[in-house]
């Protein structure tokens, strides 16, 4: 890899296929990426582009109808694919923390927040009940919940959405993971609450220094916190670049279109919003063409025949597209 530091997570050629009654769904196709320690990788893409499935494939959280294949998924140099179920389980709880999209349904409604927070601590760190509770209270106050100790005995429904998301974050961070995977953690929240959480994560990252994968489809959020951004479409990574580079110099027509669709709070008010017409691809079979071809403004013959491979535009910026944005023609 390009990075000097050994990557925390290194994924090579990941494929995930769902077997459903209606046939196979190729949800993730040949995805490779890596996350360095302390790095925040933003993952963007429209709904159904395979963001969540990619992350869940890594940690074995998918239902049994999913088949995951990968050349290698290395976590700190160890290949997860070779691990036993138990080892993976331990990794999941201790070294990798997950925060899920919907804080309303991701907490078990019938257990107290305290119970849910201490569960992982007791399983993985073997802490006693008391220790675990102390740590849980500590975590809760860390994520900014006042009166944390008392609130351990509350049930999830007694928390507001933003607080619940904080509980989720506290839960994910409880065992001091090396990697945090956050799957659209703020999508369901209000802007003011979202701002609170983003501030919180920024702070925590500095304090704890872990690698973070932040999934979202809000480019604004990415712009605010990510170091590097990965754009997904149709189960593939179509572009990957440091955040400033990506916004300044997008290469893939999809990235460009995505940036254009967004209305802005400042500046000119366009008469019409640009939109990406058409439908996302149906992932029924292995891709033999560019998944974006049908909606692409720069589509070429080749796009329909061959699925582009990733090419490097600049150091740390690569794109999977036959069209070359800098030259305005085929690459």
């Amino acid at each position, binding site marked *: 890899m390009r990075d000097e530091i050994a990557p925390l997570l290194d994924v090579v050629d990941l494929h995930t296929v769902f077997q459903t009654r*209606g046939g196979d769904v190729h949800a993730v196709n040949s995805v490779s990426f890596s996350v360095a320690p302390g790095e925040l990788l933003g993952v963007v893409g429209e709904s159904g582009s395979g963001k969540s499935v990619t992350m869940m494939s890594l940690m074995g959280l998918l239902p049994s109808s999913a088949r995951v294949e990968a050349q290698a998924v290395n976590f700190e140099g160890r290949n997860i694919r070779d691990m036993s179920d138990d080892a993976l389980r331990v990794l999941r709880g201790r070294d990798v923390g997950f925060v899920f999209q919907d804080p309303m349904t991701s907490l078990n409604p019938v257990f107290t927040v305290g119970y849910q927070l201490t569960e992982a601590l007791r399983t993985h760190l073997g802490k006693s009940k008391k220790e675990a509770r102390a740590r849980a209270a500590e975590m809760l106050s860390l994520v900014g919940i006042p009166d944390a100790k008392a609130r351990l005995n509350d049930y999830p429904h007694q928390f507001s959405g933003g607080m619940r998301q904080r509980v989720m974050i506290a839960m994910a961070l409880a065992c001091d993971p090396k990697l945090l995977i956050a799957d659209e953690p703020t999508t369901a929240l209000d802007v003011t609450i979202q701002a609170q959480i983003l501030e919180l994560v920024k702070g925590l990252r500095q304090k704890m220094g872990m690698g973070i994968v932040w999934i979202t489809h809000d480019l604004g959020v990415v712009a605010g916190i990510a170091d590097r951004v990965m754009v997904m479409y149709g189960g593939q990574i179509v572009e990957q670049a440091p955040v400033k580079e990506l916004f300044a110099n997008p290469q893939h027509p999809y990235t460009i279109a995505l940036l254009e669709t967004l209305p802005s709070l400042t500046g000119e008010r366009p008469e019409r919003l640009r939109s990406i*017409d058409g439908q996302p691809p149906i992932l029924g079979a292995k891709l033999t063409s560019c998944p974006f071809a049908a909606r692409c403004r720069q589509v070429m013959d080749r796009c329909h025949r061959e699925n582009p491979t990733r090419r490097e535009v600049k150091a740390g910026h690569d794109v999977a597209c036959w069209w070359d944005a800098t030259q305005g023609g085929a690459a």
Partner: protein
Amino acid sequence: MSDTSLQEMPKASSLSRDVWNQFRVHRGAMAGLVIFTLIVLAVIFGPMIHTVDPGFMNIRLRNAPPSWANPMGTDNLGRDIFAQVLQGGRVSLAVGITAMLLALFLGALIGVLAGYYKRLDGPLMRFTDLFLALPLLPLLLVIIMLFRDTLRQAFGPETGIFFLIVFIIGITSWMQTARIVRGDVLALKEREFVLAARSIGTPSRRIILRHILPNVISPIMVSATLGVANAIITESALSFLGLGFPPDFPTWGRLLFDGKDFLTLTPERVFWPGLAISLTVLSVNYIGDGLRDALDPHIRGR
């Protein structure tokens, strides 16, 4: 925007065809349907092939083991069991299905009304409690006493009793359905599409028919399955108490009941009616499963 050249509106595809297509791929449901159809065909056409009169008693040939003439043997009065099972199936199936339909209708009606109209909820649920609490047997005696002769005159002894039994079973077994449906309706009524219908100006009556009912079909389906079994068994209990069909009128439940004391003597007497009931219930259950899936567009599309 994509060009909106004028395409033809497609012919409204028939719902039944969609449902059938989905139903067909459900293996259990198909198996259930085949077995159920076989049972129905057997009880309808069986007596035409196996022409022995189910009521004919040949006392010299009592408790006979199965033979060519009596494939399931004979009972203690020398009646052919096979013929009785076939004949009894007609009644049992008819009672089971109609009583189930009646119970379902009542249960769904009361459940929907209670769930949808907040005002009716309390009274209707207490009404349900009342029915749950009513002593069944004395109630039956009262109903029989009040209506039997009128019905007998109007429809003849067998049809009259048929109506009565269906009515009795129906009105005493709707309560579970009502409770379940009410719960679902309460949740459903908060869904936005109901609000959408109101914003259009659809009156409550049609909201219920168009939006609520089709969405509670799945719990209703489950009740239906259990309802058939329940009705068949209840009918046998009624017959035994002398509240059912005339005593020489076979039904599956009754055959099972009458045969139980002969368990060691002529086991086929209880085996066949028992098997018939179980198979019916089982096949209806699988058909119900399949129908529920097939009626759900989510699954259908997949």
